[in-house]
């Protein structure tokens, strides 16, 4: 069972480049790609999907084409809407889509990964600090330069013309 509701998600985004059915299908796909696990949210989480929809908005034409293809293929091969298919059938259809419309999946995966793996809850669940690197930065341990001893013993070996 997918960890997403089959009813339209309650998104708080203001982007209107995708209709309600398209938004729902995108959330189903995101949840299929990255499901919830323990403290980790699903990529279909409302806050994450809100950012996904905003970022996909700039590629709305390609995304809409991909979503139409999914809906059409699901109806033709299973006579069932994609969100209502079992996981195995959904995955098989995604594999087919990967062959037939790789551009859509490349964009979708890139954006979902970007929005998911910058989410504070996700970062903390992986033991990482939330937020940007600047200004705190990171501490890198001092180097054990004795590692270089074998190299220091070599004579110069660059060619002098």
């Amino acid at each position, binding site marked *: 069972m997918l960890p997403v509701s089959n009813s339209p998600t309650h998104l708080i985004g203001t982007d209107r480049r995708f209709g309600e059915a398209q938004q729902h299908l995108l959330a189903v796909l995101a949840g299929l790609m990255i499901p919830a696990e323990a403290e980790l949210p699903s990529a279909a989480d409302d806050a994450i999907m809100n950012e996904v929809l905003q970022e996909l908005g700039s590629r709305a034409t390609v995304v809409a084409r991909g979503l139409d293809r999914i809906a059409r293929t699901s109806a033709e091969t299973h006579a069932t809407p994609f969100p209502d298919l079992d996981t195995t059938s959904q995955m098989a259809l995604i594999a087919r889509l990967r062959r037939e419309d790789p551009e859509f999946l490349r964009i979708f995966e890139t954006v979902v990964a970007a929005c998911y793996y910058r989410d504070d809850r996700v970062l903390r669940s992986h033991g990482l600090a939330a937020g*940007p690197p600047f200004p705190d930065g990171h501490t890198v341990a001092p180097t054990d330069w004795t590692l270089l001893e074998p190299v220091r013993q070599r004579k110069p070996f*660059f060619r002098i013309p």
Partner: protein
Amino acid sequence: MSRADEIVDVLIIGAGAAGAAVAHSLVDTRMKILCLEQGDWVRPSDYPTNGRDWESRPDFSGSPNLRRRPADYPIDDSASPIKPVNFNGVGGGTILYMAHFPRFHPSDFCTRTLDGVGDDWPISYQNLEPFFAANDRVMGVAGLPGDPACPPKDGLLPPVPLGTLGETVARGFNALGWHWWPSESAIATVPYHGRGACLNLGPCASGCAQGAKASVDITYWPEAIRRGVELRTRCRVREITLDERGMARGAVYFDDAGIEHEQRAHVVIVACNGIGTPRLLLNSSSGRFPNGLANSSGLVGRNLMLHCMTLTQGTFERPLSGWQGPIGCSLWSKEFYETDVSRGYARGYTMEILRGSGPVATAQGGLMRGALPWGQGHHAAFRAMFDRTATIVAVGEDLPEETNRVTLDPNTSDSHGMPGVKVQYRLGDNSLRMLAHAGQRATEVLQAAGAVSVAPTLTEGISSGHAMGTTRMGVDPERSVTNAWGRCHDVRNLFIADSSLFVTAGGVNPTSTLQALALYVADQIKMRLDNLFD
């Protein structure tokens, strides 16, 4: 500020690594110097590491086709396995480079004599040595003296720490008995000339919010401007114009409002990088030069070199803390840099060890390779991947070939209607043999370092900001575009001062060498002011 109808002494086109160095050097002459730059200043607060979307900002992508800023011009790279990247703005490519800062080796300047391939430069390492040193002082270079693979150098800042990842891979090199050394890096590891010390933010290739990385907007330019150089941004040069004597008259450019001007100058210096420079010359055709300005040799745009490269990634069982620290500056190996004919190819390559990626880039890369699945296995696969990968990039010397070239693309244009460019590039046989060798050696190092798996080596689709050779220097006007100090054979007050001048590519990142060369060109101009056009 100069008036539009004023004739300046020197007009520099492009405010990147080379243009900044030239301006900084020529200001000693007290000449009126103007630089026109098509892009703008980048504010430190704009860099991605200020925000939580720091790993995925398309406006700081290296690809102009993804970035699509107003200053960018399209590059059709569909006919090239190597994908050119750049940045158009004050600082040029140094805004997004990794600050990996090796110099060319002495042998790189005479490959024809030594190895029977490529061509000899009209200058030597010894000619450039004082300018390497001068450039290092302005940029601030971290490293460790004593590398047996390179000529000695002074004045290095403390090296960038290797981190767990670097030490792990270094042990692999030691196990094989191969050379390695901490990378020389244009990064302030201690406060340097007003720049703060490196904070190990990680993604240098999307800009340094701390200002520790030596981009020329914060190294060369502030002093050059203080001393009188005028830098005019958001001014895109469309064409270099000629007078009735066949000398450069100046340049036609669009200002920020899109209004066209002609800026006249006694000397014009082009520094738009290995792709932008031939683009401008080819777009400056005239009755005298129907095939592009200064192109009687037919070589403008030809002999494009991008470096042939491999990318080999190993996965380790334990965390490597690899995404913390300058991503491009850990250690290098020159074990296979100099020619050894028993390897089956001429010339050689540097192995550069990159630090790991952040969580977003890890996930995106895993998805792209099919290594990170959809569904319930996703999280376990991510945990096994994140912070457990080390990458070796081999930067190999591709030989100059006239069929590798930059041409104007009539099918695309920039925001002012000037044609974009098309890059046609193929990997030569020598490069392919070198890449096969490099991929095998990188795999062996990663295995020796303890990698539990090593992915197949990639040789195509890799990005390169190392465009070189498209207006090569030389003594023979039929075989080169400029003379031995950057003056065009065809137009005696037109100079080129960037990596377009390179005769061969070396097997290292080019920024240190192109800046030393720019300082050399400027120095030659200064020494010859009384008879510069003779």
